[in-house]
């Protein structure tokens, strides 16, 4: 399919492009910027006047399962996401190369976003026996993780990271000390004290960041810290990076906007892992993102059935459906922090890709045609009924957010067209 996107504002930080011009796509690649290739004719003309044309978003955190893959990849397209790193705590757990093959083949057949799985670091994510990392890597895993599971010993991690370092595989970990977080459901602060919710102290994160960074230092393994949530955690990552440790980090888009106060009267949509923390923490996460301590903003997409929320706060399942609010939350943050759009798009763009050692998305001629076209000035009220995702669970429901995605193109294939939705 040949697509011409005309009159839009092309923003591509990788090729230092921010200009109003046409983009030409053919055979899954960008074939022209500004000028059409010889003997050009398009199957599809897209009028992007007043719209932004940018590389598709790179989302480093989503939970995908084979059963719901088609729906959730459609949701990713509706969210402008063209590359997804998915966590191994799917069902079944990605601790078996066959499962990884099947997931990737199914994703390819759906013409959805490129799916880059993280393999399980341990069999069944139990933190006891090492999974077959080399075989999983051969099947397409780009790194290894324990998903949400944090119950493993420092000794297991030390050995697992030595093994991973042998082959240069990165290890992605959620920095939360399991015993300090045990039983907790909310940030250990005033809100939890008032609502009578069991707290997860900030030191659950700092203790884990320190331990994981030290083990990375000792083993030489590359470490990606998933979902920072505390001011002290950001500071610990800043120090580790300053010391030259091979550490990267991400933050969930929700944690850049919400705090524990948003739990209100037990809003189970705010039951997240890590927990929403204080305003001071949120501000530190923003500063850490802007100064580059935190590499990427992620959706942490975890769609849940509606009844998973019809429970008391502590019993509700953890997570939010995040694909379809990721871009809006990035735009909202860029607006309130006065960050240029090109830089902000990098948070779920080239910066995220670099952290995951994936090729940086670009609009340069010859690059894969992964493109999002959106209206940065249009606002919409977030409603679960307008989600493509099967999970309507989002703490952003009812909020008015900037950014309307009009088109998403995956490898030259028009995966989302707001006009037909």
């Amino acid at each position: 399919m040949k697509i011409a996107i005309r009159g839009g504002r092309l923003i591509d930080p990788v090729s230092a492009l921010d200009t109003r011009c046409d983009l030409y796509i053919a055979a899954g690649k960008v074939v022209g910027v500004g000028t059409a290739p010889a003997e050009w004719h398009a199957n599809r003309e897209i009028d992007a006047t007043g719209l932004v044309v940018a590389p598709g978003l790179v989302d480093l955190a989503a939970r995908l399962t084979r059963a719901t893959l088609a729906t959730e990849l459609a949701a990713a397209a509706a969210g402008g996401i063209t590359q997804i790193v998915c966590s191994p705590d799917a069902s079944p757990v990605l601790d078996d190369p066959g499962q990884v093959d099947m997931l990737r083949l199914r994703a390819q057949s759906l013409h959805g976003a490129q799916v880059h799985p993280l393999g399980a670091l341990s069999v069944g994510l139990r933190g006891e026996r090492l999974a077959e990392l080399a075989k999983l890597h051969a099947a397409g895993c780009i790194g290894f993780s324990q998903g949400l599971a944090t119950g493993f010993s420092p000794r297991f991690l030390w050995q697992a990271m030595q093994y991973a370092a042998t082959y240069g595989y990165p290890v992605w970990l959620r920095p939360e000390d399991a015993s300090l977080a045990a039983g907790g459901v909310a940030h250990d602060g005033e809100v939890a004290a008032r609502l009578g919710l069991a707290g997860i102290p900030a030191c659950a994160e700092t203790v884990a960041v320190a331990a994981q960074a030290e083990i990375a230092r000792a083993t030489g393994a590359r470490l990606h810290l998933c979902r920072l949530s505390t001011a002290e955690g950001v500071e610990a990552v800043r120090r580790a990076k300053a010391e030259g440790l091979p550490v990267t980090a991400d933050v969930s888009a929700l944690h850049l906007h919400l705090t524990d106060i948003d739990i209100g009267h037990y809003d189970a949509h705010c039951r997240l892992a890590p927990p929403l923390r204080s305003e001071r923490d949120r501000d530190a996460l923003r500063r850490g993102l802007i100064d580059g301590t935190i590499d990427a903003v992620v959706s942490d997409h975890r769609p849940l059935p509606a009844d998973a929320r019809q429970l008391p706060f502590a019993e509700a399942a953890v997570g939010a459906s995040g694909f379809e609010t990721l871009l809006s939350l990035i735009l909202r943050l860029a607006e309130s922090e006065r960050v240029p759009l090109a830089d902000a798009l990098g948070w779920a763009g080239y910066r995220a890709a670099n952290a995951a050692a994936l090729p940086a998305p670009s609009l340069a001629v010859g690059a894969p045609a992964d493109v999002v076209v959106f209206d940065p000035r249009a606002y919409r009220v977030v409603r679960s009924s307008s989600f493509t995702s099967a999970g309507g669970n989002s703490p952003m429901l009812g909020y008015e957010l900037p950014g309307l995605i009009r088109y998403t193109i995956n490898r030259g294939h028009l995966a989302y067209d707001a006009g037909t939705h």
Partner: protein
Amino acid sequence: MLSKRNLQLDDRGELHHLLAIEGLPKRIIERILDTAESFVGVNEREVKVVPLLRGKSIFNLFFENSTRTRTTFEIAAKRLSADVVSLDVARSSTSKGETILDTVANLTAMHADMFVVRHSESGAPWLIAQHAAPHVHVINAGDGRHEHPTQGLLDVFTIRRHKPDFTRLTVAIVGDILHSRVARSQIHALTTLGVPEIRLVGPRTLVPPELARLGARIYTSLDEALVGVDVITMLRLQNERMNGALIPSASEYFACYGLTPKRLALAKPDAIVLHPGPMNRGVEIDSAVADGRQSVILQQVTYGIAIRMAVMAMLAGAAR
């Protein structure tokens, strides 16, 4: 955004559910106390029944077991002539996999007018109130470690009967504040009624510093905290607190935080002693204090019936 709204009051600002003391206006707390005052008389009569709630159906939904609180709610409902059904949901429907909201929907279909809910998770009555039919009222009879509003109300009712001017009181609450729904409700009731000084007393494991934000001062020494106080509330220490590293033993706890006659003498001579029950004699309170002249612990039990009658009558619109 139901969960962002205070569901307790209706559009006219009247009480629709009783879920927490936090957020209740002073005028409503005072009206509940005044209404309870009129029911104290009923409870002292030969015939202890009034027909205010005749024909109303009240369901006690105890997802967590509690004989004492459930019994006082049953007595209160019966004295108002309501039909009352107590369901031991902890053992019946939920163990068959039925969700809380399914249970509530089924009972609403049986024309329930009011649910009295106890649950081991903080916020559960809030969830039920969010999904309740508009004519149904929900009373929180204790949710996790969050609130136990009728207990808080009966505490301030008992205090008011002895010390009518809240704006001159110093109150000490002693023990496991962190895990106590009783303490949270009492603190909110006292601050709303204008008590200028509330002292929370205990080791940092049971009284973390964030609790000061509820409008209280934190003390780690009971002897210092008791000096000059008018009211002392002793909280029950659950045995399970001694399983981890919160406190070492009952005897060390009693040595540091047990209320003895010697310590009670540090308070004002006319200070009163409250306890939500059931007491652990020799753990948080010495028998000589529990049974002494300054103890109002049994009055709390008696007034608990009047308070619950008042709340039910007000919710049903029978005491406006």
